[in-house]
């Protein structure tokens, strides 16, 4: 690796760390400034002020903001993510308990996308303006036009309640994966299919592709060696950006299908103002996001050496 690339990586790492720090600070402050008191949500509805302030003290919320933040960062340095207000167990324990389920679901959604959407987009581009192209693109547009919770509920009604083919909720067997994966992946598949198609179309038009074809190289060689590599750039970029959407979509999908993942965990924690859980989940997902984007950027370098780094 040349020095310029090394410098670039170092700079990116530094920026990533700063981004993460910014996110934790922002989340921390936002949670405590937004209306909604976790103590009031543990105690019964009309708890008097004295009870509420006592509970806040037990939860560690009576200190000034900067003291709380200092304590939070100090604990974080020891890998202590705080104790959940609702469940009274370490937040990280809850997150690690539920994380695998969400990762499995997300991976299966991505796998489905890569398996179905990418080839569909490629074929649609190669066979432009044919029936396949129209059919695939129409299906893709529909995939982007349906709100995901509606899709999920209708799938449940049709395949679980009416036909009893598939289970309704939970994550025990592989059958449980079918409907949630489809629901989660619908939007992504549609997006990736269309993006692949347009990206491929553009690349296929390039001079060097035409040159290669003119030289007599087999169509397939042209495709695989030149076209795909360059078409991948925008796809990889967009998929990287969509990780955030995937987590957001997971929240809805997990709620509908009662999937025991962190999407459901974090939304319940937000409603209950369980700060430690929200902070832990956000930190983790920000970390994942930053890491994935770093990898994506590096892939960028590999795929298109024309992009320079200052």
């Amino acid at each position, binding site marked *: 690796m040349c020095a310029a690339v090394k410098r670039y990586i170092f700079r990116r790492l530094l920026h990533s760390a700063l981004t993460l720090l910014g996110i934790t600070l922002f989340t921390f402050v936002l949670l405590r400034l937004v209306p*909604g008191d976790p103590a009031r949500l543990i105690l*019964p509805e009309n708890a008097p002020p004295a*009870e509420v302030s006592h509970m806040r003290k037990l939860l560690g919320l009576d200190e000034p903001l900067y003291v709380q933040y200092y304590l939070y960062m100090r604990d974080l340095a020891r890998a202590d993510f705080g104790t959940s207000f609702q469940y009274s167990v370490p937040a990280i324990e809850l997150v690690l308990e539920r994380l695998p389920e969400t990762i499995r679901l997300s991976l299966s959604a991505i796998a489905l996308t890569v398996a179905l959407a990418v080839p569909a987009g490629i074929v649609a581009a190669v066979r432009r303006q044919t029936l396949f192209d129209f059919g695939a693109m129409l299906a893709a547009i529909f995939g982007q036009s349906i709100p995901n919770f509606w899709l999920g509920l209708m799938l449940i009604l049709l395949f679980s*309640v009416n036909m009893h083919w598939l289970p*309704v909720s939970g994550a025990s067997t592989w059958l449980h994966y079918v409907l949630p994966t489809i629901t989660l992946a619908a939007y992504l598949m549609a997006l990736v299919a269309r993006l692949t198609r347009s990206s491929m179309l553009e690349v296929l038009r390039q001079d060097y592709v035409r040159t290669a074809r003119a030289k007599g190289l087999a169509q397939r060689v042209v495709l695989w060696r030149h076209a795909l590599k360059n078409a991948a750039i925008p796809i990889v970029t967009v998929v990287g950006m969509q990780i955030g959407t995937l987590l957001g979509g997971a929240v809805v999908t997990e709620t509908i299908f009662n999937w025991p993942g962190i999407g459901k965990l974090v939304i319940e924690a937000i409603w*209950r103002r369980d700060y430690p859980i929200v902070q832990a989940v956000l930190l983790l997902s920000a970390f994942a996001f930053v890491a994935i984007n770093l990898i994506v950027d590096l892939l960028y370098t590999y795929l298109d050496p024309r992009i320079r780094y200052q």
Partner: protein
Amino acid sequence: MVRKLRDLGLSRRGFLKGSAAAVGALGLGVARKASAQSAAGRPRPTGELVVGLSEDWQVLDPAAHFYIAAYTVHSHFYDPLVEWDEQGNMVPMLAESWKSLDDRTWEFKLRRGVKFHNGEPFTAESVKFTLERIIDPQVKSAQAFLWAPLQSVEVKDDHTAIIRTKSTFGSLLSTMTMTGMLPAKAAKEPGFFAKPAGTGAFRITRVVKGDRIEMEANTDWWKGQPRLAKLTFRFIVEASTRAASLLGGETHVVDRISPDVMRQIERSARHTVARKRSVESQIIGFHCGKKPFSDVRVRQAFNYGVDKEALVKDILLGHSTVADAPMAPDVFGYAKQQPYPYDIAKAKALLKEAGYADGSPEVELIVMKGTYIKGLEVSEAIAGHLAKIGAKVKVNDMEVARHREARAAGNFDFYFAGWATMTRDADFALWRNFHAGEATITGNQLRYANKDVDKLIEQGQQTIDPQARKRVYADAQRLIWRDCPWLFLYWPELIHGVDKRVRGFRQEPNNITLVRDAWLE
């Protein structure tokens, strides 16, 4: 003889085979019968029941919560000292008998031979530990207010506990129905509440927080082993998914079914519904401390101006009862009042008297959509009714956290809410809602203050004699009804969706889903 049997069509070989089989069957039958009878003389626990709940129970510590779902789940692996039965009588559980020695002292004789799931014996020490930690300021207790009058618990001997209270604790027994007993030694260990040991019908096998809790039968349960071998509670928040899980066969009992969905469940050949009147009141609370609701005439006008019968008939499809008291009939101390009839003319007249012309008052009703069945629809319908008496009502639907903030801070005109009298005692229904006290102590969010009502409520707390308490509460309810700090609406019916194979399922009026004695056909 052999020839005779041959005449009957039996060959010798056939006869031998047949008799061997018969003896074998007889023998097996005897053996099976022996194993099927356990020490308690009941059939061996079989089957697995899955219950879908609408709320997350969150914690397994009896002191750390105030959630109906937590009571439901806890009732299956903890036992309290006393319990309400179906007829509304107090029956002994871990306490065999009790009496009050004087105004502030109670003596409980405890059941012998009861063991916790971890083997620790149940003694008066358990009672002392369990109750005293509820009021321990170091413990994250959500029920401290309920036990405020408690002073101490004395261990007279292994099976006698003396409970001393600072003031007369009239509702001690009712409050006690909600508290499961803890093992004094084990509960002090860190991590105990991740998988606690109680004395209950089931013992916990697996917990996935925020998702499910799995239990297996406690064959040594002092009441006799339960009929189910395995019991699982699942938290399914999305109403459609919950109902779908029942219809799809993944759960056998689900709670909080709305009346519209109920019809669909009844249509299923394999399912039915269970319905019961609850102790929950659906109400609208007025801010009695500022205009326009500081004027009792306006509050009464609103009570006259809402067609509660129409709400119950149209929106709740008849599955509720129009309220005729501030508490439901299954609550001890309930005293029936004269309901406010739907009278537009009277409402308008009262508003005019209070100085409000047509198009006023302009007020905002805050609701929390997901929390109460049809809460938003009822609120919108009520806004429609009130428009007819000349009031302009805007409905503001917000999340629970903001709703509670608004109520605590007094940033509301009136709010839609419910109150479930979980102890089934009038004190629980009235004290926190209507007692003004010093605002810092009781935190009556309605900012309602009536000294006579306060005195009556206090009297109710300080008497142990049930008849005297009833009289006092009757007076209090009359005053409250007349003052209407609430817009009294209705008592929603509890609707559970149930698989037809389930037997022995008990709906409690306070919405606890009790499947302790249930089994699957």
